[in-house]
């Protein structure tokens, strides 16, 4: 994995760095056993020269280097290294032939302290592909004794002085280096048991970091012992993943020249080992451009990470022979304006027939076939849709608020069916409660014995199977053993999914109101789950940082989406069901391809854990809301941030687009619902240059886009839903404290 990354840098920087390799080594020859020069490839031999096998650990390293060289086909170097290190061929061969598994396992154990680390690395590596055996760079990613700990401050402040003295245009770019360097230097100090130096270093420089890294710094400040690094996930993430920076070529060369002049190997090493510098040609970015994209746990997304083609178009609606025409005629006759409706219908039909060029193949993902009841429902929804109110800045939706009263147990999640007939709440006392919003009561199916008695040929058999005695306005579902954090209705309203702290996702039948399946896989709290818009599939994500794709009839996940560096806090299906978006506490949104499990988009820019996601109805955009109260809008096709909506003062827990996508509603902990002009927000021309470079200019027009702020009384808004006629439903638990 790391080798691949290095390769990227090499291609960019090989020419310039090669001559310096020897210099570096010379300058650092006394520094330590394993000093690396700027370029991984060219320095491998240099490092070997300086190195002498002094212990079993060192030998492991050398073996890893040998392996790397072999794979890189640098056979001469292999020979030289072997000779110099005094390694016998046999040893080497036996070690390597023992099988990569054994060797890598021991390496792994050495590198990643603790079992959690191993799983973590395994997770990340599996996602990258099997060829990524742990090798040189992973071995070296364990912090080793390098340089004098007392000089770290000097190094850092030297760089700081340099960056502060460069031209403004470069300063903003190079300032990005501060945070990752600071963290790595601090960790290095801690890892090598220089506790006092680490503390002094932290106190001196932690104030310089950007304010949005405050939470991370707080975690960091508590960590002063090597032992504590074991099992601290945040830090493991930092060590195992490279922090990605985007820097223009000019700035980068400026930096490199400086570091070479100063012989500042310490920093150069960290940059080489732990940072990934994505160099681009052209103008350096401005401070605001950088700020809008940074903030995530692992820096910005790499440019090539967002280059994959995404089929964001909608699937073709299945053509349904509409027997409702007669009904419609009747209705029209009643209303007395039959002419107006007919052409509308035709329009709808023709639109559906055209295949969206950006849409995936209809059968790219196998989708369940429509049942008769589904078709009926489709017809119903189409009929409703004709009565839909066209929203806009001048016609704002009406808002109905569903207040959960007496929710002493703590309301943790809410969902509403697409036709707005049922509402369900997940509670902290492990219960799931379902209410009927319409006068139609909730009824269970009769018991098996009673079912035997009914006439199966009767027309109203579906009505007869229901047990009238059980009719009630609400039902309680017991089964979980922890707070229910996520809840989702199936599109056909027959099932309900709930995810809980107990590590399971449960599937409930809304016919019998019993639990059908408990999906086990996440061994840690599952924060969110959601059904696919076509049913059958669902996605779940939780504390184990892996999102899983399931099908209701499989007890094991179909796909595992690994890559997030912290908890997955929310999951959402793309309207065409081919993609899944996940928001995470690592402050990125990722888009995964359901077909092959690849991560096709990484959106960085949030400054806090992301708690809500929403796709626009046309599938082109996604909105995400985070604990910092900001809502960010992303263009999926280009992989760019296209808007920032500021206004909320607390975590945004709910986002929803209106049925036609004109309005984005956001609901927050601060007890407000805000409506935003989505059409205007998306009315951004993305030119080729921006699309190619990924440099965005965000207009600061939140105030213009904000159409309204609607207050609740002591009630955080945790769910939003637009009915088929574009009435906005909001829900939350009344908080009496």
């Amino acid at each position, binding site marked *: 994995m790391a080798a691949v990354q290095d390769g990227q840098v090499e291609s960019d920087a090989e020419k310039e760095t090669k001559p310096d390799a020897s210099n570096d080594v010379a300058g650092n020859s006394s520094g330590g056993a394993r000093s690396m020069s700027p370029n991984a490839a060219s320095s491998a031999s240099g490092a070997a020269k300086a190195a002498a096998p002094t212990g079993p650990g060192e030998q492991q390293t050398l073996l890893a280097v040998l392996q790397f060289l072999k794979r890189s086909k640098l056979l001469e170097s292999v020979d030289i290294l072997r000779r110099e290190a005094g390694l016998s061929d046999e040893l080497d061969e036996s070690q390597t032939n023992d099988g990569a598994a054994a060797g890598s396992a021991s390496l792994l154990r050495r590198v990643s302290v603790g079992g959690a680390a191993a799983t973590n690395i395994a997770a990340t590596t599996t996602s990258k592909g099997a060829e990524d055996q742990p090798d040189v760079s992973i071995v070296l990613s364990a912090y080793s004794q390098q340089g004098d700990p007392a000089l770290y401050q000097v190094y850092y402040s030297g760089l700081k002085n340099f960056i502060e003295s460069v031209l403004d245009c470069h300063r903003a770019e190079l300032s990005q280096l501060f945070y990752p360097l600071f963290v790595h230097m601090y960790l290095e100090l801690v890892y090598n048991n220089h506790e006092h130096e680490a503390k002094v270093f932290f106190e001196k420089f932690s104030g310089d970091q950007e304010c949005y890294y405050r939470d991370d710094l707080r975690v960091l400040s508590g960590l002063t012992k090597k032992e504590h690094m074991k099992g*601290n996930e945040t830090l493991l993430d930092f060590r195992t993943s490279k922090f990605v920076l985007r820097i223009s070529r000019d700035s980068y060369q400026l930096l490199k020249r400086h570091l070479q002049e100063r012989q500042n190997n310490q920093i150069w090493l960290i940059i080489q080992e732990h940072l990934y510098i994505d160099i681009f040609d052209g103008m350096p970015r401005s401070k605001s451009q950088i700020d809008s994209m940074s903030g995530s746990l692992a820096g910005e997304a790499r440019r090539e990470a967002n280059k994959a083609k995404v089929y964001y178009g909608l699937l073709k609606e299945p053509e349904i022979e509409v027997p409702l025409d007669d009904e419609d005629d009747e209705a029209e006759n009643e209303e007395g304006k039959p002419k107006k409706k007919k052409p509308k219908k035709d329009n709808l039909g023709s639109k559906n027939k055209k295949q969206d060029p950006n849409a995936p193949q209809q059968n790219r993902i196998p989708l369940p076939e429509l049942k008769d009841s589904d078709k009926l429902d489709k017809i119903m929804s189409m009929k409703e849709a004709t009565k839909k109110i066209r929203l806009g800045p001048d*016609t704002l939706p009406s808002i*109905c608020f569903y*207040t959960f009263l007496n929710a002493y147990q703590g309301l943790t999640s809410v969902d509403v069916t697409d036709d707005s007939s049922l509402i369900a709440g997940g509670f902290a006392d492990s219960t799931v409660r379902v209410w009927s919003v319409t006068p139609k009561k909730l009824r269970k199916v009769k018991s098996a014995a009673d079912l035997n008695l009914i006439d199966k040929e009767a027309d109203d058999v579906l009505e007869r199977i229901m047990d009238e005695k059980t009719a009630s306005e609400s039902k309680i579902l017991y089964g979980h053993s922890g707070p229910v954090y996520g809840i989702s209705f199936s599109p056909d309203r027959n099932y309900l999914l709930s995810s809980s702290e107990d590590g399971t996702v449960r599937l409930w039948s809304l016919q019998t109101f019993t639990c059908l399946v408990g999906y086990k896989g996440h061994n840690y709290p599952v924060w969110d789950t959601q059904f696919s818009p076509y049913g059958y599939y669902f996605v779940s994500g939780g504390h184990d940082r892996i999102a899983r794709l399931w099908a209701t009839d499989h007890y094991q996940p179909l796909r595992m989406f690994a890559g997030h560096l912290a908890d997955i806090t929310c999951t959402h299906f793309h309207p065409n069901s081919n993609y899944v978006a996940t928001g995470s506490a690592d402050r990125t949104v990722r888009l995964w391809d359901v077909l092959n499990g690849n991560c096709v988009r990484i959106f960085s820019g949030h400054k806090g854990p992301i708690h809500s996601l929403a796709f626009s109805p046309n599938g082109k955009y996604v909105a995400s809301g985070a604990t910092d109260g900001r809502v960010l809008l992303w263009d999926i096709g280009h992989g760019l941030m296209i808007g920032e909506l500021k206004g909320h003062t607390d975590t945004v827990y709910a986002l929803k687009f209106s049925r036609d996508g004109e309005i984005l509603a956001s609901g927050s902990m601060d007890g407000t619902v805000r409506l935003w002009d989505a059409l205007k927000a998306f009315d951004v021309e993305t030119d080729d240059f921006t699309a190619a470079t990924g440099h965005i200019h965000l207009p600061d027009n939140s105030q213009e886009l904000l159409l309204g702020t609607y207050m609740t009384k002591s009630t955080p808004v945790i769910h939003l839903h637009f009915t088929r006629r574009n009435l906005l439903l909001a829900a939350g638990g009344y908080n009496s404290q």
Partner: protein
Amino acid sequence: MAEERRFAEVSRDSVKLMAESAGVEVGDEVAALLAEDVCYRLREAAQNSSQFMRHAKRRKLTVEDFNRALRWSNVEAVCGYGAQDALPFRPAKEGELFFVEDRDVNLVNLALATNIPNGCAETMVRVHVSYLDGKGNLEPQGTVPSAVQSLSEDLLKYYQQITRAILGEDPHLMKVALLDLQTNSKIAALLPYFVYVISGVKSVSHDLEQLNRLLHMVKSLVQNPYLYLGSYVRSLVSSVMYCILEPLAASINPLNDHWTLRDYAALLLSHIFWTHGDLVSGLYHQILLSLQKVLSDPVRPLCSHYGAVVGLHALGWKAVERVLYPHLPAYWANLQAVLDDYSVSNAQVKADGHKVYGAILVAVERLLKMKALSLSKPAEGGVGGQQGTAGGVLGFRESSPGLSPPPEPLSEAGLGIASHLQAGGAGCPWEDWTPVPLPAMYCELYSFFGDSLAVRFSTGPELEGCLPALPCQPADARKETVANAAAGLDNSRKMPQLTANLNISPRPDGSPHTEPPPPSLAATIPGRPFARSSSSSSSVQRRSSSSRPGQRSAGPSRDVFPKARFPPPQAGPPSFSFLIGGRQMGRRCQGRRFQTSFGPQPPLASLPPRAYAHKLPVIGRVSKPVRRWTCSHYSLHLPL
């Protein structure tokens, strides 16, 4: 960096103590290491627990969250702290030792207790149309939305108890009930019921006491911070308006002090409006309209008119300016007719007329005052502008009709305030309405009230700026007042009296008016030459002038206005303050004193006008600068 100190630390000694209590001897070094590790683990657990809080969509970290974090890191959970209430954390007397209070619970008593606690109410979902078309809910005025929900046993009981207590006999019980209504956070479901009860004002219009209690109920509901009134505001407002405006059955008996009720209701109205006016769009406008309607309806009894006037007054001087002032000429004729009828049969009506007169006077006085104040703000700018304005003021007199008061600053100031009001209020558009410049307004008002219009000027050190032009008035315009004054004896217009220039004649109609108090201003500044002006002169007297000697010489010093009685103490920049004093006569009440001092207000002057105006809409809430205002704002203030 003080980052490190933000964390609680477990000291080495604590670790040692714990170890000792567990029977283990721990060395210094070990204790130090352990302490550090414990700190780190605690921090880690705290950080982990916060994500449980975030996912539970809460702001408050609970013990449960922390326990979950502990459980997931394979640590035993802490038991016994699951209560929702905050635990009292107390210091021990000796030493710096803190502990959580842990009282013994007598289980026997608990088990044998006779009052078996009810279970919690059932969790339920209630739907409410919060915003229609993105606006506040629009329901027909005055209707109470049918209460849709079925109430739990407990709520029903609560409702019965509360209504019984409020409408019952025991004043203490009522107080308790009202207080609970004001602070209870769990009565949202009962709101429609209470609103319905309150809408019963119409059925108890014969009973002042009950009306009063219902109004208090409104107040409690309005002040409850947990209640979202939503569209019920409209219903509440209509109930309150009923108390203000309707000729209540109780007012047939002159012994009933329905005036106080109306005053209180007016106050409440303004309170509702300022605190909840934003819930219903156009509320302000609607209130104004209905008040105006009543005022313009001559068939209505005088007590309704009185209500309309105090209502306007309570809504602020802008409302007075917009509705009452333009309406005054038309209304005056009616009132005049009532007041001029000396027949015995008319005595009662006449007394009512006096009430209305008094109310109008108070309202108008504040209007003038506030307008003047709003003018003085922009004029603070520079000496030059001040000079010019002062000159203009001086010049604008009867003898030199060619000069007009500087219109720009006046109108600007007026509009400025208006726009703030509007922003803070219901957002009611002040379309096509231009404020009358202050001088003209004063002239007109003077024509009605004559000397009773008690705007006085005195020098004060703080309120800098030119005082508004209060120009003179043609003598013939002030019909009866001046005539009466000239007659000297038959001055029957005695409601709010002021200053010493009014000699009270014995009342011809024999109504029990008390003597007006001596002018407060004169009393407050004794030993000054008291240039008493004779009110017998029918010539033009009233005008304001700046107290600068230079300017005084410019005009003949015919100042009858009280301000002129006091020569300026020094030739500093002119600064003024108002004092309106007097006593408003009521027939039965002993005459409420109204004194609105507008004098030295250091914070006023120090505040930039913008900030000050910004504070304006929150009148009625408890914030300091506004408080001062409210006392002048509600000269009809009654102790609630």
